[in-house]
């Protein structure tokens, strides 16, 4: 039985919006990347998993429990970072984390402190005055504080600087080692590439492909070998274009943009 099991989930909002016949299985201990451009249906799918929306057609289960009916049971084992962070503006970060641990009735030995240190967040200020990145860090702390078995992360690194994005990637790798099941949505190929085992691509509400990261990378990376006049020039060229220098020969690889990859999958789709 898959940890996260979405079957033929359909939600039609009319005029082509919504999600159509989406099926995803995520196994225990797996990091699944959910990739797609803005408005593709990532958040709609996640709302179903969170029990915010009732499936009209199809079903979704987490650990064999129905995401709508048993949502409160599922939530005790689940950590969630929403795509749009909106906390209680009237509270300070500390008050909010204190409220959450009382509200969820979780024990004192939680992971709040660890998260604050890891992401160098000072939670003393009012949430209203916090920057996007600080709110995002607070969201990460809130999602990990009760040490959940399953993590659903909707564009978790938005607003984080590259250093913090790296820390987040490290965190995901550690959690994966602990056997956590993670579904991570993103619109950035690089982010999922670094963290995920498998990637599902969604576009216009339809799941276009589910593939191993390696397969995708091989299929969509092109390598070029460039000969330059001198080794000095080659070294500079390699530095500028992130290539591998060998004498006066440089090997550079070009990744296709997400949109190009999608085009490959969709081929002659007139919507593309």
């Amino acid at each position: 039985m898959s940890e996260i099991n979405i079957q033929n989930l359909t939600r039609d909002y009319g005029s082509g919006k919504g999600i159509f016949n989406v099926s995803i299985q995520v196994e225990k201990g797996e990091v699944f990347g959910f990739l797609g451009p803005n408005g593709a249906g990532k958040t709609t799918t996640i709302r179903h998993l969170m029990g915010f929306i009732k499936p009209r057609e199809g079903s979704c289960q987490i650990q064999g429990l129905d995401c709508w009916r048993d949502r409160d049971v599922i939530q005790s084992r689940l950590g969630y970072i929403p795509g749009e962070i909106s906390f209680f503006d009237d509270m300070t970060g500390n008050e909010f984390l204190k409220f959450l641990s009382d509200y969820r009735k979780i024990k004192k030995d939680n992971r709040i402190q660890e998260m604050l240190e890891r992401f160098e967040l000072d939670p003393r200020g009012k949430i209203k005055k916090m920057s996007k990145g600080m709110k995002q860090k607070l969201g990460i702390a809130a999602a990990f504080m009760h040490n959940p078995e399953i993590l659903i992360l909707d564009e978790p690194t938005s607003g984080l600087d590259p250093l913090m994005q790296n820390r987040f990637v490290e965190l995901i790798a550690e959690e994966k080692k602990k056997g956590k099941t993670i579904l991570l949505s993103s619109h950035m190929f690089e982010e999922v590439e670094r963290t995920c085992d498998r990637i599902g691509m969604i576009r216009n509400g339809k799941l276009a492909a589910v593939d191993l990261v390696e397969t995708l990378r091989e299929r969509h990376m092109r390598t070029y070998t460039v000969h330059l006049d001198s080794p000095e020039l080659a070294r500079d060229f390699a530095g500028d274009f992130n290539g591998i220098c060998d004498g006066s020969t440089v090997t550079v690889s070009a990744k296709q943009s997400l949109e190009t990859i999608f085009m490959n999958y969709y081929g002659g789709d007139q919507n593309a």
Partner: protein
Amino acid sequence: MLNMALYKREMKGSLKMLVIFAAVISLYVSVIISMYDPEMMKTLDSFYKIMPELMASVGMTAGATSLIGFMISYLYGFILLIFPMIFCILRGNALIARYADKGSMVTLLAAPIKRRTVAATQAAVLISGILLLVIYTTGLEIVIAETGFPNALVISELLKLNIALLCLLLFIGSICFLASCIFSETKYSIAFGAGIPAFMYVLQMLANTGKKAEAAKYFTFFTLFDAKGIIAAENSAMIGAGILGAGAVGIYIIGILIFCKKDLHI
């Protein structure tokens, strides 16, 4: 059934508003009760003779002789209805719809807490606020009446009257709460939560002016709150208050059920 952490947070959120409304009510109650004076009564009666419709529309009628009759005329027609009503509208909207609108409902629902518990806690917060306002008003009325006019106020009558008032206010609160549960956008929640009670109150004002407009009383729930009837121990007034109370319970429950079943695009 209730989540104490949420209840505490929301009661703190009610506090500022409760203090403001208690202050406003204190001002009016103390000024109006201290105006109870046969001489002044004549003046007010003369106002009534000059502009009976206007005075009647806000529930003020002439010829109130006892202190409680005086209070019913000048407090229970406008001040003790409108201010708690504004409290219900503002808090009712803030408790559910504003969270859904702003998206911070995610915080409440991405936790192992049943939606039923969240909604019931928010309903309890609104009910607690109304209860506190009525209890405070009752205590204040007793203190002011006893200091100004010892033994003029029959406490048992006042208690009966305020229980009926409580039923009416709980009913108003339930409408605001229901609107908050149905609509995930603040503008609609406010439009219905404020619009329905306000419209009903306008109908009541119309009905009070008498004549042809009296038929309006059949279309407003304010008619079920019959303050004079409660004091006169009329059965119909008691039943009216009972209907308001029972209706309030029913509407709170419907609101909670709707919130449990609805899709939240948060």
